[in-house]
């Protein structure tokens, strides 16, 4: 549905994008994960036709977004990072404006506005001026304005920015419920848990480059991340070392050890060898591979707010 090829963009001396390359299939929720300034918003802006790339191409539904700009924009729904709403108008009036912009009119416009108001839980406040809404309510309305015309592709640029965790979860649920009927989504975020929870595939972007992309499992594998098993008990290093040949083991000061094993089979094998040898084990904790670990491994730094 979306093909982004070798996108490059500079703002003066600053290179925002340096050859971004990815594809998103129809109905897929694709996450662009990266810290602030990584190039996520620039990528979204180029796809939406708000910025021209210095080089590279974007095709949406087979159409070039520069040559067939208007037809591409008809397919898109954009939820910007900023709350782009008219505070003087009510929620419903805002939706009527944004829906009207995409050609909705009359009873269809009213029905679609009611539908998305229901979806984001703002039906009872629909006729209040937006300036009276809380931050979370504005975020939800901002999201609904991008969904009102049932776009084929929706670009969500950090739609949960600046709201409390509870409101964030609510937004994620709305996206899960609202993205139906084969809608394709590009979701940018710098929250790992959002990408993990929502996205089918994820691209990790930093300094304008895609460092890795794939499903969570593929990324973990790609980064060589494994399960981390921490074992504590009454054993010595000399006792267990011969049993764990080929396994990365770290012996901790409190007498326990931390093993990193790439997969389930390797983990089961290591633990059975310990049990078979009669090693006294008091506690085992298993930490599954996470996106955070992948991110740290790929970028050499933690994601920051």
């Amino acid at each position, binding site marked *: 549905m979306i093909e982004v090829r070798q996108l490059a963009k500079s703002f003066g001396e600053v290179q925002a994008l340096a050859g971004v390359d990815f594809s998103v299939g129809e109905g897929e929720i694709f996450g662009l994960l990266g810290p602030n300034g990584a190039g996520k918003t620039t990528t979204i802006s180029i796809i939406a*036709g708000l910025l021209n790339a210095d080089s590279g191409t974007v095709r949406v539904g087979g159409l070039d977004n520069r040559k067939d700009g208007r037809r591409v*924009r008809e397919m898109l729904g954009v939820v910007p990072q*900023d709350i782009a709403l008219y505070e003087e108008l009510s929620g419903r009036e805002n939706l009527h404006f944004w829906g009207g912009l995409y050609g909705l009119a009359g009873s269809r416009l009213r029905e679609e506005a009611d539908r998305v108001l229901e979806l984001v839980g703002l039906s009872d406040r629909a006729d209040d001026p937006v300036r009276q809404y809380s931050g979370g309510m504005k975020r939800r309305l901002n999201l609904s304005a991008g969904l009102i015309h049932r776009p084929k592709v929706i670009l969500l640029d950090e739609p949960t920015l600046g709201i409390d965790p509870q409101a964030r979860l609510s937004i994620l649920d709305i996206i899960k419920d609202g993205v139906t009927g084969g809608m394709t989504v590009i979701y940018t975020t710098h929250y790992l848990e959002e990408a993990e929870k929502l996205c089918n595939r994820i691209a990790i972007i930093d300094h304008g480059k895609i460092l890795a992309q794939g499903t969570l499992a593929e990324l973990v594998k790609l980064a060589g991340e494994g399960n981390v098993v921490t074992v504590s008990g009454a054993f010595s290093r000399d006792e267990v070392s011969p049993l764990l040949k080929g396994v990365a083991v770290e012996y901790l000061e409190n007498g326990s050890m931390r093993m990193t094993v790439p997969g389930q089979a390797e983990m089961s094998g290591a633990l059975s060898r310990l049990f078979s040898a009669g090693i006294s084990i008091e506690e085992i904790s298993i930490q599954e591979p996470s996106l955070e670990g992948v991110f740290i491994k790929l970028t050499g730094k933690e994601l920051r707010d």
Partner: protein
Amino acid sequence: MNKILLIVRKDMRRRMRNPVSVVCMLLIPLGLTLVVGLVFGGRGEVTISHIKVLLVDNDKGVASNFLKQGMKQGKLAELIDIVEVDSVAGRSLMDAAKASALIEIPKGFTSRLLDRKPVEIGLVKNPQEAYLPLIVEEITGTMAVMLDGTTRVFEKPIADARKMLTAGRWPTGGEMSGLLASARPRIALIKGYLADSLVSLKSQTASAPGEKPKEKFNIFAFVMPGSILIGLLFISEITMRDIVRERETGTLARIAAGPIGGDQVVAGKIVSSFAITFVSCMLLIVIGIVGFKIAWGSPLELLAHLIGSMLMCVGIMAFLYGFIRSERAADALLPVFIIVMCIFGGAMFPYEVMGPAMQKAAHFSPAFWVIDGLKRISIDKAGWNGIARHLAVVYGVGAITCVAGAARLKGKLAARE
């Protein structure tokens, strides 16, 4: 077209929900008109209020009575309010500035006049008033000349009458006949002046050849065109400012991300600005009619000129906003620009009171053509020919600035480099 109307409808609705800024911009021209108009004479039907004159009559004779009655006759009675007081009260009231002037007729005024001896009428003027005491001085002087002339003409009959009146007895028939006989030739001498004059005075306000007689001058009609221009400029400024504000809040980018052309977005903003300016302008015109009794002249000429003027104001603002990046920059630059343009165009200091050099410079300010055009329509009733150049300038400048402004704004909107 539908999308342009969608933007216009949305902007109009937003303005209606938050009309404070537009209302403030309407109050500025109205306040200016009111203050300047009142300072220069209110509704323009310049009237002089009753002139209060104190009169001290120390004579109580025929001549002093003639003077007093003369001031209470005809038009003078409408103008002058004579209050008779004694000398002490008169001085005290003048010290307290309670009257425009004090006239003091000395004792023996009548007898000295009849004896043809020099005599003075005292006049004390209120120093706090500029013109009213001068009017009293002029009237008193004229009355004194008339009194002197009358006594000169009737010198002989008056002398005879005085003898009879001071003889201590009633005059005989023969004496009365003699008196009348001596008076008759003098009356005959001035009969031509006493009878109805062959020459009468018909006054009217001067008009240029072929011009219709002018209506009563209304100072508000003179002041309000400048104020309207200031209002139009500020209202079109705050409405075009939406471009910058929407850019900062992100709504403009969101609109641009939709299936709408940059030209439609810009057209929508310009039409919105024009529509809001138009409604505000019509409100000012109606307030001018109802509140300030301004006869605006031909409605068609007025409408044509106002539409051109609004086009010009909106166009100038669209053009300027093509170069302005932020609200802060707009705050710093545009009010100064508007005020300078208005000063040069005669919105604050009328063109008529400007020096020759400034008057020449005024023609280079588009503001001049708006203001002068409005004055020609409302005050001079100049007709289409009289405002042809004005229409050409406002529509010309309006069209050029609108096109250039729209191109510039569209370029900025599409500046995706």
